[in-house]
């Protein structure tokens, strides 16, 4: 998604979808008003939304996005049961540490999505993003864990999924 026009169109569609979900009707009046407001918003924010230019729009994009969301919710549920188990166990089985994870995603949007996903996966919380490094607080860090191992365990599967629709 390189050109200004496709970016404008993308933001317009997102705004329209949001408008449609919030109003909940398909009345022509509502749709016309929504289209008007959406175009104004998309026009005004065009300069500041270049972050979305990292998205690759192609035939496979929706499938990759769905696959990513499926993986995301699966790990979110696992994370909750994991955390519940730790909280209920009387001895509180945690061994926290802060480690570094390397990412190969280039775009800011990709890094943000990866950091968000890491925060909601079992026992990990992304603390800071600095270039290619993501600082991660890990509740149950295995002993003698290094960057490479942590990257494999925490980031690898999400990175693969995000790469499906982003740079």
């Amino acid at each position, binding site marked *: 998604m390189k050109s200004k026009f496709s970016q404008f169109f993308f933001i317009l569609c997102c705004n329209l979808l*949001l408008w*449609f*979900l*919030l109003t*909940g009707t398909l009345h022509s009046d509502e749709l016309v008003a929504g289209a008007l407001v959406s175009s104004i918003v998309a026009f005004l924010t065009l300069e500041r939304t270049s972050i979305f230019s990292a998205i690759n729009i192609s035939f496979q994009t929706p499938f990759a996005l769905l696959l990513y969301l499926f993986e995301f919710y699966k790990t*979110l*549920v696992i*994370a*909750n049961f994991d*955390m*519940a188990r*730790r*909280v*209920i166990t009387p001895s*509180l089985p*945690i*061994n*926290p*540490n*802060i480690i570094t994870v390397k990412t190969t995603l280039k775009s800011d949007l990709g890094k*943000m999505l990866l*950091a*968000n996903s890491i*925060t*909601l996966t079992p*026992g*990990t*919380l*992304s*603390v*800071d993003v600095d270039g290619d490094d993501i*600082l991660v*607080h890990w*509740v149950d860090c295995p002993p003698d864990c290094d960057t490479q191992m942590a990257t494999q365990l925490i980031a690898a599967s999400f990175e693969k999924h995000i790469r499906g629709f982003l740079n």
Partner: protein
Amino acid sequence: MNTLGYVVMLVGATFCFLGGLGILRMPDVYNRIQAGTKAVTLGSIAVLLGVGILKPDWWPKLVVLGGFIQLTSPVGSSAIARALLRAGVKPWQKQSNGESGS
């Protein structure tokens, strides 16, 4: 159908409760953020799902609410954790038992 909605809401409330318990039990601020973020994200989404089953007309708005919670909650907790790290709060380690960094 109503029963199913209430059960899903109860599950969500249970997760929120466990998140609160985690905030009380965890030894330092980073672990508390962890317990809070995950449990409350899934808990609120489950509550919204339960409401959606009870009131099927509200689906579109509930989807928007769930999406915003899911996007903003990890960003918020990451921002808090980052500010804490910059302010020099050390994470609690198992070796230094009982000595919290905060």
